[in-house]
């Protein structure tokens, strides 16, 4: 559905010389500064896939999305979206894609939400009966009935985002680009958005490309992530694979039965013999009588570890903490900060 090959975008800006009259000299200077925002990015996205496109601020996410949607013309490389080169044939491309920019609404600020949806239907040349059907369905799914007649400028962020999502999906585009769709939303609003995206994907096989800083969005929706930084692809694959590659460790939290300090303490040596390691509690308030053991899921079986511990110590309770995507990504981002 989407084929991106060797995609590169370089921005050229006049260089601002240091010192006095810098502003004036910028006007007459011929020196320019080149920054590569996206550097030789290649990937394929199949029909119906939901892909999380991740990276820290300034990594080149938005620039890539803008080239995929046809807003920007790349410096080199190619993009093919459903057989269309987006920036060369913008209007044909527009008919097959829906775009949500979380930070900017596409709705008509001074008009009731209902009018915005009418206008989108007109813009995308929807047959009236299709529009009526979609309209009823979306008002219901996104629970919008209550604020349809209110001017968009008076809506809360959560309501406005629901309106924006409805506007982007109304005409049933084959591809949906979501750039930070849940930014600034509360937990309930986020859940509504995610459910809706999932429903649309399941029902119509809509291909979804999602950029977000909320990795819960990705864990919930995407089976695949593409991670970029400094304009280059760092990782492209499944979420599970990403975790096992970058965070193979699971954590076993063990609470020892408190019997007045009589019990034998769990020591690092004993734990190491079982194929695990003691780790510090990362929580804000360490719980008493609790130890955390880190072990590699691939090498040590959780059941063996628990059985061995129970045999030696008086264990009151155990629980397993799986690595979350957030920790994984944090680890990758912080690693890049180190000198190579």
């Amino acid at each position, binding site marked *: 559905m989407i084929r991106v090959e060797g995609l590169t975008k370089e*921005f050229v800006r006049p260089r601002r010389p240091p010192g006095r009259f810098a502003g004036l000299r910028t006007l007459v200077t011929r020196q320019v500064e080149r920054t590569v925002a996206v550097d030789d990015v290649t990937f394929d996205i199949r029909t119906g896939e939901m892909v999380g496109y991740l990276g820290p*601020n*300034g990594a080149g996410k*938005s620039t890539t999305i*803008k080239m995929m*949607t*046809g*807003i*920007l*013309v790349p410096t080199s490389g190619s993009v093919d979206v459903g057989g269309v080169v987006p920036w060369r044939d*913008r*209007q*044909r*491309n*527009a*008919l097959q*894609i829906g*775009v949500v*920019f979380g*930070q*900017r609404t*596409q709705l*008509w*600020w*001074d*008009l009731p939400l209902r*009018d915005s949806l009418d*206008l989108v239907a*007109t*813009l*995308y*040349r929807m047959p009236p009966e299709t529009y009526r059907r979609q309209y009823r369905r979306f008002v219901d799914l996104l629970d919008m009935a209550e604020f349809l007649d209110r*001017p968009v400028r008076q809506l809360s962020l959560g309501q406005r985002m629901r309106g924006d999502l409805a506007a982007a999906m109304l005409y049933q585009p084959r591809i949906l680009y979501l*750039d*930070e769709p849940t930014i600034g939303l509360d937990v309930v609003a986020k859940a509504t958005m995610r459910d809706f995206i999932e429903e649309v994907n399941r029902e119509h096989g809509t291909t979804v490309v999602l950029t977000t800083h909320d990795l819960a969005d990705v864990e919930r929706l995407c089976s695949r992530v593409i991670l970029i930084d400094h304009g280059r692809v760092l990782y492209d694959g499944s979420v599970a694979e990403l975790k096992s590659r970058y965070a193979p460790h699971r954590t076993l939290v063990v609470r020892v039965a408190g019997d007045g300090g009589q019990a034998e303490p769990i020591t690092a040596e004993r734990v190491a013999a079982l194929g695990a390691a003691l780790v510090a509690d990362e929580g804000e308030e360490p719980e008493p009588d609790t130890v955390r053991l880190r072990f590699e899921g691939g090498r040590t079986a959780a059941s063996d570890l628990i059985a061995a511990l129970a045999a030696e110590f008086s264990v009151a309770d155990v629980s397993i903490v799986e690595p979350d995507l957030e920790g994984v990504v944090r680890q990758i981002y912080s690693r890049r900060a180190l000198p190579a």
Partner: protein
Amino acid sequence: MLDSARVTWALTRAAVRGAAQYRLNFVILALMGIAYQGSGFAFIAVVLSRYPSIGGWTFPQIAVLYALRLLAHAVYLVPLYMLNELDSLVREGTFDRFLVRPLNPLLQVLTRRFSVNSLGDTVTAVGILCYASSIADLRWTPMTVLYAAAAVLGGALIEGGLAIAISSMAFRFVEVWPARYLADHILLNFGSYPLSVFGAVAQWVMTWIVPVAFVAWVPAAVILDSTDGLGVSGTVAWLAPLVGAIWFCLGYQVWRFQLRSYESTGN
């Protein structure tokens, strides 16, 4: 084409509905337009009450010229006012949205909001034209009425072509309002008087480089049947409306070229 027209019409109606939410603005901005354009005309009236003519043109003749220019300006401004806001649409990244919708981005810019300012200009222009026709030595024939209508449209296209070309520089340089102000003022300050008051060089430049002459001076001379001092032949004078069509096409080509350098904004 027809399809785009239908969509554009729907967007225009929405823009008017949006503007109608701020009813007081309608009145204030319309009054502002009348005051601004009316005072310009009053200035000429005062000057010509002291001198019988300027550049060989009498007050009634200049009134016709002034009315034609203002009418052309109004006809340009009503649909194209939003070009003035292209700078901020580009700077704030709002323009991105227009590139992912199935309609020419220029039409989306123009229909984003409806500007009320232009209403005042239109009212003043029609008022002055009625007044000028009553005092000038004018014989309206079907031919001159048709020509005047075409000339007003042509004048609007000249101003529109220039505005589109200059505004589209915003795709590359983001802020271009000073250039637009300059162009506006050249058209306003030179276009409202008979160009014969300026020297031969200035007159030539404003005929053949920036076609200020064709906005109102040449058409007014044709309507008043006094094409002698124009610096263009009578035939060329009759073809004045065509200059607008050509100039507008050029302006649109510049827009298309500049659009390719659009670089959006960061997040």
